[in-house]
């Protein structure tokens, strides 16, 4: 098989991994004002992702590095063309990451509130902008004959991309709330389930609109089928949440996100960066990829490494499988240690 085709789907798989995993981190981050009634609540919420947010975030670094190695032209055009949205994503991820680590370092309320705000901002911004970015990739942007982006930031803020951004924002929000219902106990768990149902309905409306628009633009057979499957998965996830089947609801949300990413990549294939102004300027898997040699050595290494990665990351999730509740949160020791 042509390795460029294989690597197109490898890249898709890494972005699926990233959005499924960091997606619920974003949702948990955004949930603080909705589910965190006091500091103990907020600490419960943050501790549900405490041991894993870093490994989840690393998926984007790996996806980016794989993209660089396998499709340098795609990487170069995408990252330079979407400069300002990516800058915002970077700043958001920086603020979110340090906030997890710094918020518990001091006992003062004002200190914690500041980092809580940064966690909310740092989670909502990437959740929105990743959707805008991927919708734009599928939608196409103006490129010159060297495949450089020649549009302005306004070209990236078209209605289809904005709808895509709102869809991922809500999708990750609901994904995170469902994750909280699965990982906490007591009143937070109950409130999370109620909230997940409400946000799930809005998510479903947005997702159906976005998937429908995608089908209208790229209505090949496979895209239609995947879009329908994704919508069905989302509705089942919401229904299982209503029925209180938390594990199933979370699995359903993860599958929905995977389905949505697959729908977009299928709509994109075999282009990787379609030029809206002139199809001749488009980047495809053929003219954006690395040499067969580089793809081949990368394939062998990925074949060796990926099963190992899935194994030890799966084990990590198993180690931290227990629910977190208010009883687990110790009193703020720092308040006494200062003396």
């Amino acid at each position: 098989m042509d390795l460029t085709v294989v690597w197109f789907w490898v890249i898709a798989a890494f972005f699926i991994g990233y959005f499924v995993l960091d997606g619920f981190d974003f949702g948990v981050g955004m949930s603080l004002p909705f589910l965190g009634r006091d500091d103990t609540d907020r600490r419960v919420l943050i501790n549900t992702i405490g041991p894993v947010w870093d490994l989840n975030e690393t998926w984007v670094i790996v996806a980016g590095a794989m993209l660089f190695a396998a499709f340098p032209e795609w990487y170069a055009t995408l990252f330079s063309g979407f400069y300002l949205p990516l800058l915002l994503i970077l700043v958001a991820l920086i603020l979110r990451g340090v906030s997890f680590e710094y918020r518990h370092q001091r006992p003062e309320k004002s200190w914690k509130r500041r980092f809580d705000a940064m966690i909310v901002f740092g989670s909502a911004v990437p959740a929105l902008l990743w959707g805008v970015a991927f919708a734009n990739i599928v939608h196409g942007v103006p490129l010159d004959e060297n495949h450089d982006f020649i549009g302005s930031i306004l070209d990236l803020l078209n209605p289809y991309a904005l709808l895509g951004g709102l869809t991922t924002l809500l999708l990750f929000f609901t994904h995170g709330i469902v994750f909280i219902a699965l990982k906490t106990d007591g009143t937070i768990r109950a409130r999370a389930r109620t909230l997940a149902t409400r946000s799930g309905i809005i998510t479903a409306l947005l997702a159906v609109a976005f998937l429908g628009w995608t089908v209208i633009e790229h209505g090949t057979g496979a895209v239609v089928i995947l879009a329908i499957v994704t919508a069905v998965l989302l509705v089942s996830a919401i229904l299982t949440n209503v029925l209180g089947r938390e594990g199933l609801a979370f699995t359903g949300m993860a599958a929905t996100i995977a389905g949505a990413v697959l729908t977009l990549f299928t709509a994109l294939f075999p282009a990787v960066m379609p030029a809206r102004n002139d199809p001749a300027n488009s980047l495809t898997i053929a003219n954006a990829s690395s040499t067969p040699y580089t793809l081949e050595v990368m394939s062998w290494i990925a074949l060796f490494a990926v099963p190992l990665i899935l194994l030890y990351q799966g084990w990590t999730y198993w180690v931290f499988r227990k629910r977190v509740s208010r009883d687990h949160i110790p009193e703020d020791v720092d308040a006494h240690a200062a003396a």
Partner: protein
Amino acid sequence: MEQFLDPLVLSRWQFGLTTLYHFLFVPLTIGLATIVAIFQTVWVRTGKLEYLQLTHFYGKIFLINFAMGVVTGIVQEFQFGMNWSDYSRFVGDVFGAPLALEALLAFFLEATFIGLWIFGWDRLPRGLHLATIWVTAVATVVSAYFIIAANAFMQNPIAYTINEEKGRAELTSLGELLANPIALAAFPHTIFACFMVSAGLVISVAAWHLARGKNIETMRPALKFGLWTMVISGAGTALMGDQLSLAMVEAQPMKMAAAEALYTTASGADASFSIFTLGTPDGVHELFSVRVPYLLALLSTHSLDGTVEGINDIQAAYQGVFGPGDYAPIIWITYWSFRWMIGLGVVHIVVAVVGLWLTRKGRMPKNPWVWRAAIWSFPASLLAMSVGWIFTEMGRQPWLVFGLLKTEDGVSPGVSGLTVLISLVAFTLVYGSLAVVEFRLILKAVHAGPEPISTDDDSREPAARVTVY
């Protein structure tokens, strides 16, 4: 106004600032991971509680620092595409592979096992929990190898062919790329230097407490450990730096000439090394200098009568090969950064040796200046690390990939100066304020000192141990 909005100049400033900033946190991540792992191993093997205290104490500093290393690292990867898209297109087939290997084989390990270590104290058996910090430590070192191998391609491009039609470099052998002689020398040099910085931190912090007569039981072994680590890693850094300069003379003779501001080719006694020079910054007019004859010849060729090529001769030769242009880096930067790197490194080894002598057989020096010198170990070793990177990266100029691609040809053609200015300002503001927060948090952790360990382990609620944040 135009000159303030040159995307090339702004992108270079941004890359320089964000990379130097990132590398303030990397050495501590690499060195402290192993040092904390050693403390924890001693505790597990001997049951000595002061080593558990040291593990928690330096572990806390390690984690405050670790978070910054992680989040600033993402910027590094994104920046190649954002600001240097033509560079990414030119080298992606070659340069992307080590980055992808780093991410797959090392970064995932590091990010996963650090979480297991932080949250796993009461969820994992003692031996397994100890293994998680060792996996983290090994992963940080492996990660450094791939990054340095990628960087070595920029210093000494090998294992590629040029595809004229596509206008890019293409990888011919991954094995050869990873065995770049520059990488083989730069990797141990950098890792030893990371351990010097981390030893500097251990020494500074221990000295701060000992000078005040605080926490003597825990801090005395920490000081000893830090001093020994400094001496050993200092010797390793110097030895490997010597190997690196030999490889550098082969690959980038201009950089070595620029390190000494040697304009005309010299041999033997004339190939002297100036310890200190007063004169015009470009090194052309010398007022006063302290020189060691033969030393430059010895450093560059390992022979007393060796010949070291001067800037003017290399410049003439390069014009013959690459066409008209200026092929020398900014001389005052390379000259002074090289001296500060070596000078600070040597001072550290001397301070550590003297420190070991003064604290022999449990002695505690009374002279406050001894403690002051020890406390300055950390900031000064971090400075040595930074000027070392400034030397090696500024010394590569005007090339982005030596001999293949100039820095000015690598910048993103589609990104405007205003856009880069916005991001440069954004990074400066975010990084600047985070530096203040991080510095204060580390100071707070240092001043608080090691927390006492409750020997009655059952007194705490088991449920209270599974959350950290």
